[in-house]
């Protein structure tokens, strides 16, 4: 534990408007907590749009042939679903919302190192998001390339690829600046006594994530600029007709986009690593192993991009090399899962919604992770490449992993963020419906994927209809669960009972200050004396 002084003249950050009033007090805010909420409201808006697009796809897949839309429209819908969910929801999701809110508090700081840059990052995020939405409505029509913008198709299609890629380019700057801010904050603003190895594990995960954001995102930026240059000026980077190489696009795209999976997943793992010790009232098992495994995932995760390209025409040498590296990156992920489960052993477990969401995360992440090994192996990958199996694996990792970790995080930290509690019973009902709906939605995709159902097809043979029907029903159940969950959380945040400072008996610094926190978090700089998970 640490010496923490509560603010004697306490004013919640929600009530402190600074020199601006009304909506301007939010748009012009430099307080990391207000910026976190700005990100959360933006991201939740895009998430809801993404879910609506997902349900449109599930409606289309209810029956073979055209159900509610034509093939071209279906291509545009899954492209927009992908762009929204990847670039505007899951990549910024956990680090921009909960990282912004809790990183400074976890390390005993008043704010991030560059508060104005932090605000600027959100502004850029909004501009990029508006550009992404505009790409759907401008006269050339919505892009139909999928979120991967694969060349050479993306260099020749008449749809609005330039606007969509420019949007992703701009959104990338937001990510880079956030990563830079977090790295400097962790290096410079840790409270006295807080060495790297007695920092909580969520900041550790954010630190590893920030390096990926900083180093990998410029690669996609350059790649998208090259794509725009090829479309606008016919410079032959990727199109073989112009002397380019389409595999170069795939290499460059995945050099960013595979590490980007860890931008999504590492903070998710960090959230789970915070929740489990709190609800088990136990020191995390293998603190250093969990901390270092975040760095290992970030490091090795940079080198495995080729497993997305086994069937693209890469050399055999490259294929086995990438396969080997892919299996290596599974090791630090497995270390985390082992340590979470071992932490629960003989713990004093308090079964509350955040903990249940964490359990759901572990269950879904294990399915997503082990099916990832199937895709990491060249021999099996070539059988299921570009099938619904990949869709299922991807969603088990991204939605089952990052999505459920986001839900776990909001259930865990909402009392601190808003100073109010929510209805546990309703939260648990939402969780159960979400869990059932999620598995019904995505598990059948594993089965029909192995049977040969391609992904991104709006039509399919009649033999796949029962599984598609189950999947669509799962989608509707999941949406029901999401509505219940969002209603419960919004109601709790607005009208819930006042939350105590430490409702879960947590040991990290955010639980030692009032709920919601004051503007400067701490009245005096805390002095750290012991490890962050001291439950003796």
């Amino acid at each position, binding site marked *: 534990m640490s010496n923490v002084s509560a603010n004697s003249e306490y004013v919640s950050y929600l009530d402190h408007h600074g020199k601006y009033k009304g909506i301007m007090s939010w748009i012009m805010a430099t307080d990391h907590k207000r910026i976190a909420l700005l990100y959360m409201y933006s991201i939740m808006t895009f998430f809801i749009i993404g879910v609506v697009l997902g349900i449109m796809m599930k409606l289309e897949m209810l029956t073979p042939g055209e159900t509610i839309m034509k093939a071209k429209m279906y291509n545009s819908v899954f492209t927009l679903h992908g762009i929204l969910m990847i670039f505007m929801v899951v990549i910024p999701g956990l680090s921009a919302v909960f990282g912004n809110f809790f990183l400074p508090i976890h390390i005993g700081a008043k704010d991030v190192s560059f508060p104005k840059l932090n605000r600027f990052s959100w502004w850029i995020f909004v501009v990029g998001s508006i550009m992404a939405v505009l790409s759907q409505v401008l006269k050339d029509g919505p892009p139909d390339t999928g979120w991967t913008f694969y060349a050479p198709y993306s260099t020749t299609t008449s749809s609005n690829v330039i606007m969509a890629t420019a949007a992703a380019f701009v959104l990338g700057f937001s990510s880079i600046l956030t990563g830079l801010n977090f790295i400097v904050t962790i290096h410079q603003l840790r409270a006295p006594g807080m060495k790297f190895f007695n920092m909580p594990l969520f900041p550790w995960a954010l630190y590893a994530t920030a390096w990926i954001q900083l180093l990998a995102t410029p690669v996609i930026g350059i790649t998208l600029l090259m794509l725009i240059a090829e479309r606008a000026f016919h410079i032959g980077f990727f199109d073989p007709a112009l002397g380019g190489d389409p595999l170069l696009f795939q*290499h460059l795209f995945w*050099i960013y986009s595979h590490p980007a999976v860890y931008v999504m997943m590492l903070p998710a793992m960090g959230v789970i690593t915070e929740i489990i010790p709190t609800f088990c009232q136990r020191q995390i098992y293998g603190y250093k192993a969990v901390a270092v495994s975040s760095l290992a995932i970030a490091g090795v995760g*940079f*080198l495995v991009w080729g497993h997305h390209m086994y069937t693209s025409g890469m*050399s055999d*040498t*490259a294929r086995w090399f*990438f396969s080997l590296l892919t299996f290596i990156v599974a090791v630090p992920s497995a270390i985390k899962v082992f340590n979470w489960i071992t932490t629960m052993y003989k713990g004093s477990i308090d079964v509350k919604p955040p903990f249940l969401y964490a359990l759901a995360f572990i269950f879904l992440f294990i399915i997503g992770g082990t099916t990832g090994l199937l895709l990491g192996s060249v021999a099996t990958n070539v059988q299921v490449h570009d099938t619904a199996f990949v869709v299922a694996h991807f969603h088990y990792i991204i939605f089952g992993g990052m999505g459920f970790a986001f839900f776990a995080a909001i259930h865990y930290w909402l009392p601190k963020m808003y100073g109010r509690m929510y209805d546990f019973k309703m939260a648990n009902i939402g969780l159960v419906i979400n869990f059932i709906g999620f598995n019904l939605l995505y598990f059948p995709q594993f089965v029909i994927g192995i049977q040969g159902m391609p992904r991104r097809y709006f039509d399919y043979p009649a033999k796949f209809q029962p599984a598609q029907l189950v999947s669509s029903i799962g989608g509707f159940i999941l949406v029901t669960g999401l509505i219940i969950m969002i209603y419960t959380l919004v109601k709790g945040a607005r009208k819930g009972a006042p939350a105590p400072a430490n409702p879960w008996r947590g040991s990290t610094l955010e639980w030692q200050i009032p709920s919601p926190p004051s503007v400067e978090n701490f009245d005096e700089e805390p002095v750290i004396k012991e490890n962050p998970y001291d439950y003796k």
Partner: protein
Amino acid sequence: MANNTTHTIEYQSLSKTLLILLFLTFVTITIASVHLGAFTLAVALLIACVKSFIVLSNFMHLKYESLLLRILVGMVFVLFALIVAITFIDYAFR
């Protein structure tokens, strides 16, 4: 935790650094017209890395920073080299 020490570099030293960078830029342009076969890209990347190192070290004051920061930046160069090398495992063995 903060390391707020400031460093002032002499204009003479900055000018020398600038001259070295300009010389390396000249080398990059010159060497582009020399036929080096498979090594063309490697040489260009090597010169670019040396220039980056000089900028980081002198203009961005990395040489005055802690060992940890210098190691972290060094790791970035290692990562870049690995990514380029692994990419060429595909192109070289295709």
